[in-house]
């Protein structure tokens, strides 16, 4: 079983739509959950991170973690063409140094 699973998409939405991106994970020891955005041929850029279960909001972005179902989500409100990128969920075991990434979901927002 893969540690972090993420649907690679692609996901295509019209400008202004609400986008929902999701991942599942297998290891209950994971405590921190991150979302990175990656533009083509660039390094990942941290968007948000959450600790344990719950929601965290930052502008148009909301990250949600449900530890009971091992499910993490990123919601993007009022999506813009500039949001077109690959979104990577990630996690690690507290005290460790290795970040484990999902495969990434490619998002296209059409103007």
């Amino acid at each position, binding site marked *: 079983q893969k540690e972090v699973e993420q649907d690679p998409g692609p996901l295509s939405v019209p400008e202004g739509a609400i986008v929902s991106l999701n991942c599942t994970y297998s290891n209950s020891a994971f405590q*921190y959950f991150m979302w990175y955005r990656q533009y083509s041929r660039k390094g*990942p*850029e941290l968007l948000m991170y959450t600790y344990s279960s719950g929601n965290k909001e930052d502008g148009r972005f909301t990250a949600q973690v449900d530890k009971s179902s091992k499910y993490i989500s990123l919601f993007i409100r009022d999506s813009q063409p500039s949001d077109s990128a690959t979104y990577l969920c990630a996690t*690690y075991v507290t005290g460790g*140094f290795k*970040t484990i990434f999902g495969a990434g979901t490619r998002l296209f927002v059409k103007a």
Partner: protein
Amino acid sequence: EPEVTQTPSHQVTQMGQEVILRCVPISNHLYFYWYRQILGQKVEFLVSFYNNEISEKSEIFDDQFSVERPDGSNFTLKIRSTKLEDSAMYFCASSSGTGTEKLFFGSGTQLSVL
């Protein structure tokens, strides 16, 4: 805004040759990392480095790989004898504290082994 800088952006080499990929992490960061991404695949952890020693490494990081912080600003990844399967984008990252939830990545070095 401070950023992680990687050079070169592209490196082409012949199989069996040694390559050194260079990185300048963010100046007040203490933890340094190398990740790689083969085209179309996941970003994969290679190694982490703290206090002048490797803190964790993956099974990919075998004896052909080494890391070094030769001075107060640079962080390097050396591949001693490159293989075709080493062709990938290599990302350097750094973080300020013990939590790896906030990694700052460079733009990467695209390594092509011919």
